[in-house]
């Protein structure tokens, strides 16, 4: 099979191009370092199939962070028929270096100058023929986001693959010779000794090519980004503005998502009462209970959260594509430095508010192991969308409509607070001195088509999870609460009841009753199961569940339960990601142990504190 690799600096639109070329849904964001792993998709090309490979962005072939190493290893080992090099058309004054380095690998190359739209507004004009002659490979100007020039680029890929039917591996010159080496550890020490010299040689070539082929204005007109930055990066108002924005976005998700969730729950309940229950009436009682109060109630309650989750991720996509995240890194860097971290760690943590797993993988952009570990230690405290569902649900059931958003927001504050506390306590053990250099890209807006695709992608992912292990968890809970038969469901004589008795010494002091403690056991796998489990345990449809809960829980118990849910391990996938990225079982166990202990003590202090006060 033919293989085409997409290489380029971070944030140049490689994944955008990859998505357009292959119809995939790779993550795109206006933040350098979004793709940290190899993504592959197959497309029909030239009568056969070709494998298109989207790679993480690299600053140079001498990079040494883990995401850059992924690319180096790939280029070292995998033969390719074509290397598509994506460069930001308006930033050729620095990005051409990478093209020159790649040229030395002697792979068939196609250079795509992306963001033609931005280059044009900035008044950058490029002599394609001259550039192509200088680089010794075809060059095309495109806009991966809006599609301009895309068809031509696609045809070029096709004909170049055709011209190079045999895949070739990168020709890696010996290290001392010098213009190109992959970021292998062998060469970094070497390169150090003649560092400035080698850089200068490449520099001169770059300047020569740039001067002859590119016409860029000496000074830029005052553009929108500069004007926005004057406000958003204001020395005094910048941070308050950022947190206000975050708060308003949260309000937006909540205000739109909540009513939609209610409608969804109502519709699912009607479906059960009017259609399913009568249809199943002749079935044996145990089977009926299994299907209706087990599978349907459990899954239905989880499904009612689909709208709020979709809205949440669409809003998140707008934020990620806006470029505001890079500004957040700028505004927060000084504060994060006090915690032994940097602005990037803050953004990674913010991304964790969507889902912890990609955020853990996102730490690959950090070179220092200590800083990576410290970041991995705090990311799991980010209140991810799965935990948000549990909280929206409980808060709606226990608190008044007036207090609910405030309580919910207090959990976000708590999530920040534990992360800060953790970093403060452990920064001495994970000290690092990593330079912090980050591009601040222009502000951008996502296209409506991108948002639609994102919404679709989120729904699909959500449904896949729901139909997979969430069903499994719900069924397991039903079995535990309904066996042995002949005793009251979910009573103390059932399997669940006996298990809960064992756990009670741990959970009683923090105000978590026997049945709730069972849901926490399952919540270790995934937080969505907690909601499904609550529905099964309290054995009533979605619309009534809230009422049942309110009768069985007082607000202090509910809040203690939520604090515990927030702080103890997020889910099995996150644990697996930490294990994989840290490469250390010891660190993984430590991270789990620390969060469990912190969860218990926080809930304990809260619950006993309230008891004393009340």
């Amino acid at each position: 099979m033919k293989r085409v690799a997409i290489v380029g600096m971070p944030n140049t639109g490689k994944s955008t191009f990859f998505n357009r070329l292959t119809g995939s849904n790779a993550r795109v964001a206006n933040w350098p370092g979004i793709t940290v792993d190899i993504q592959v998709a197959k497309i029909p090309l030239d009568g056969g199939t070709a494998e298109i490979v989207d790679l993480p962005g690299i600053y140079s072939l001498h990079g040494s962070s883990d995401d850059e190493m992924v690319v180096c290893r790939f280029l070292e080992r995998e033969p390719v028929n074509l290397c598509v090099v994506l460069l930001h058309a308006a930033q050729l004054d620095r990005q051409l270096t990478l093209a020159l380095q790649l040229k030395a690998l002697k792979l068939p190359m196609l250079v795509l100058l992306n963001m033609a739209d931005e280059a044009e507004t900035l008044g950058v004009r490029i002599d394609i023929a001259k550039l192509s002659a200088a680089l010794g490979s075809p060059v095309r100007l495109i806009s991966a986001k809006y599609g301009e020039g895309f068809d031509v680029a696609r045809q070029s890929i096709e004909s170049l693959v055709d011209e190079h039917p045999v895949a070739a591996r990168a020709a890696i010159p010996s290290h001392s010779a010098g213009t190109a080496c992959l970021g292998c550890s062998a060469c970094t020490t070497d390169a150090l000794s003649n560092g400035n010299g080698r850089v200068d040689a490449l520099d001169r070539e770059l300047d020569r090519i740039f001067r002859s082929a590119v016409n860029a204005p000496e000074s830029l007109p005052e553009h929108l980004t500069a004007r926005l930055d004057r406000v958003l990066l204001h020395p005094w108002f910048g941070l308050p503005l950022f947190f206000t924005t975050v708060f308003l976005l949260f309000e937006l998700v909540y205000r739109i998502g909540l009513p939609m969730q209610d409608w969804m729950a109502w519709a699912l309940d009607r479906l059960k009462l009017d259609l399913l229950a009568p249809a199943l009436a002749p079935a044996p009682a145990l089977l009926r209970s299994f299907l209706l109060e087990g599978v349907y109630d459990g899954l239905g309650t989880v499904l009612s959260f689909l709208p709020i989750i979709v809205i949440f991720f669409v809003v998140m996509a707008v934020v990620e594509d806006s470029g505001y995240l890079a500004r957040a890194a700028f505004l927060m860097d000084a504060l994060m430095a006090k915690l032994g971290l940097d602005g990037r760690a803050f953004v990674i943590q913010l991304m964790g508010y969507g889902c912890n797993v990609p955020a853990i993988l996102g730490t690959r952009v950090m070179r220092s192991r200590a800083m990576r570990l410290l970041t991995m230690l705090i990311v799991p405290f980010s209140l991810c969308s799965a935990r948000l569902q549990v909280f929206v649900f409980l808060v709606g059931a226990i608190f008044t409509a007036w207090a609910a958003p405030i309580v919910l927001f207090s959990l976000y504050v708590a999530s920040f607070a534990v992360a800060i506390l953790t970093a403060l306590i452990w920064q001495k053990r994970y000290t690092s001195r990593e330079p912090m250099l980050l591009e601040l890209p222009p502000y951008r807006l996502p296209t409506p088509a991108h948002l639609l695709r994102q919404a679709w992608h989120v729904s699909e992912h959500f449904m896949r999870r729901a139909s997979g292990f969430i069903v499994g968890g719900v069924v397991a809970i039903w079995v535990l609460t309904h066996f042995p038969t002949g005793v009251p469901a979910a009573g103390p004589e059932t399997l669940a009841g006996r298990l809960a008795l064992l756990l009670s010494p741990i959970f009683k002091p923090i105000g978590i009753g026997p049945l709730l403690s069972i849901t926490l056991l399952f919540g270790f796998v995934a937080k969505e199961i907690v909601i499904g489990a609550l529905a099964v345990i309290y054995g009533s449809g979605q619309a009534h569940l809230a009422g049942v809960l309110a009768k069985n829980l007082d607000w202090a118990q509910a809040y203690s339960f939520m604090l515990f849910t927030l702080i103890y391990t997020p889910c099995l996938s996150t644990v697996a990601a930490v294990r994989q990225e840290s490469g250390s079982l010891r660190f993984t166990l430590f991270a789990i142990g620390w969060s469990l202990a912190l969860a218990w003590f926080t809930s304990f202090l809260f619950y006993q504190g309230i008891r004393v006060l009340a």
Partner: protein
Amino acid sequence: MSLNQVPSGHAAVIREIHAGEHLLQRMVALGLRRGRKVFVIRRANYHGPLHVRVGMTELMIRRTDADSVEVAVDP
């Protein structure tokens, strides 16, 4: 004089970079290299990073890292 000492709103030309391999590579990749003109746009409070523009690229750089960039004031 180092980049860190350039007042906000002013430009300077890079004369030399005194940084280790990793930082040097990153700086070069982001456009900070000998002979380039850097414009310091602003500084974040509490000893936060500098916001600079070099060529067509805007970037943030910590003050300690900016210290390793030796510059001459733009005539």
